[in-house]
């Protein structure tokens, strides 16, 4: 009974997702298509952070750095050196991975608040580079004029809808890869690190190495998202990787539900929507962001997806209770 209900909920969710993401977009206005593209890109970013926050139990406040670095790599290579999509794609992710491999040595021994502070500082270093290394990054003017890539399709990607579907394909690829990752033996070991690092060591895990690899993998997927952000936006600036950006990603994860992949993706969608919607009415976006954060912590500390799960379970238990008592009557 229980299983049937959760699986029907899953099927309903899947059908809704297919409708909203796959079938309906041609009927949306271009504003909505653009917004949806942005949501997908940030969903990948939020899921990548969740590998650290939700699965490994390490809160990183510098994750936008890896997103930005990959974006800058694409921006510089495609505008200055006229490089093609594949080269930019690989370079962007590689650069994020490379930097995370170096940073990893500094962060992987830390946990809790110390991890948070070190990643925050390192994120600021990347932001500082973007801001100050004017000859390379254009400083706070950023780099503009990044053309949509030619990935060998007969249709140009300047059309928002075509670009949306391309991003959707890459989003699904990233989603499947991460879904397998968190269910893999390695993903399982990350949950162990989250629950008890001392026990992991005694069992025979080199827990440092697992944290290090989690950090690098997470940066790789952040770079993945960054590549598409640069192509989507056509513009990259230090503001894409500042502290606010990093905090926003953490909020996406916490709002959606750490320790699941769908949760952060949902959180990303909600935050992106609110940001666009609310900023049409007020400049005080950060105030709203802060309030959402506090409300989440107070009323849904496990995130929306788990809140929803509990709610469904509660309702279903009630329904079952009623049914059985009806039967008796």
């Amino acid at each position, binding site marked *: 009974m229980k299983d049937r209900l959760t699986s029907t909920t899953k099927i309903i969710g899947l059908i809704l997702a297919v409708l909203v993401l796959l079938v309906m977009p041609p009927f949306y206005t271009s504003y909505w298509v653009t917004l949806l593209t942005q949501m997908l890109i940030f969903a990948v970013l939020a899921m990548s952070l969740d590998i650290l926050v939700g699965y490994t139990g390490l809160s990183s406040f510098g994750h936008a750095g890896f997103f930005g670095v990959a974006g800058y790599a694409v921006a510089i290579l495609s505008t200055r050196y006229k490089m093609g999509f594949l080269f930019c794609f690989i370079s962007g992710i590689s650069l994020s991975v490379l930097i995370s491999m170096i940073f990893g040595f500094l962060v992987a021994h830390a946990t809790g608040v110390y991890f948070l502070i070190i990643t925050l500082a390192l994120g600021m270093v990347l932001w500082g580079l973007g801001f100050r290394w004017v000859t390379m990054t254009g400083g706070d003017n950023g780099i503009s004029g990044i053309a949509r890539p030619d990935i060998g399709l007969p249709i140009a990607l300047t059309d928002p809808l075509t670009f949306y579907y391309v991003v959707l394909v890459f989003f699904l690829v990233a989603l499947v*890869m991460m879904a*397998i*990752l968190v*269910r*893999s*033996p*390695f*993903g*399982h*070991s990350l*949950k*162990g690190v989250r*629950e*008890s690092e*001392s*026990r*992991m*060591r*005694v*069992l*025979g*895990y*080199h*827990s440092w190495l697992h944290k290090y*690899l989690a950090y690098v*993998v997470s940066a790789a997927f952040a770079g993945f998202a960054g590549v598409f952000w640069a192509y989507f936006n056509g513009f990259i600036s230090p503001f894409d990787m500042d502290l606010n950006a990093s905090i926003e990603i953490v909020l996406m994860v916490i709002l959606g539900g750490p320790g699941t992949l769908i949760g952060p993706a949902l959180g990303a969608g909600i935050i992106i929507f609110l940001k666009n919607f609310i900023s049409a009415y007020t400049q005080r976006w950060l105030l709203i962001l802060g309030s959402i954060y506090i409300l989440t912590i107070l009323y849904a500390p496990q995130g929306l997806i788990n809140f929803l799960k509990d709610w469904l379970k509660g309702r279903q238990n009630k329904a079952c209770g009623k049914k059985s008592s009806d039967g008796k009557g």
Partner: protein
Amino acid sequence: MGSTGERETKRSDPCLVLKDLSIDFGGLRAVDGVNLTIEQGERRVLMGPNGAGKTTLFNLISGIYPPSRGRIFYFGKEISRYPTYRRAALGMARTYQVTNLFRCLTVAENILMACQALDRTKFVMFRTLSSCHGHMDRCNDVLKEFDLAEKRNELVKNLSHGDQRRIEVAMALTGKPRLLLLDEPAAGLSSSETQDLTVLLKKIDPAITIILIEHDMDVAFEFAERITILYQGQFLTEGTKEEIRNNATVQEIYLGAE
């Protein structure tokens, strides 16, 4: 040829030798010059009043702390500076006095963590764990062996203390260790649960060397031939049940001077 020669020497080497092992925490010398030899397949009980340094000694053996002085030999090989995970890879397993499990994971997930711990597949990222049949089979065997099969999908934090203590032992044995360090496995158990645990401990493969910390004299005497007493970080005495029972100093420590 070389490998058989190595195995020969290993057969004759004791499982564990501690030489003049000490550790200081600031001004406190928690373990003070302990010498100890544990033969292969031996069952040894460590006893001593609170603060005697029993758990600290376990932490030294399993590599949680590096010793301030002294050396540790494991099957003839010096491992004094090995990190914990390498000692585990050599077949050393332990349990904790205060239950230390993956609380928000299920029972099966806890055991699976131990199944893959000593295997290279723990780094595999692009294949689901449930498709690793070797680990799944081993996990099912362990769950059955420790009577946990029915609770396999329950979160560990929702289980009774007795069940949690049993999982501690089950996890330690999952990796088929050569040396098992049991730190008060019966801590906080009711007398019937303690009885069950004693039966379980006696069923453990005799090839596995076991060191047991235990306060309960009944459990200790039932379990081991030889008992080592620690007192204030130092080796006090060692002997058979009768020798320990009749030792005047031991009586004084446990019951107070007359």
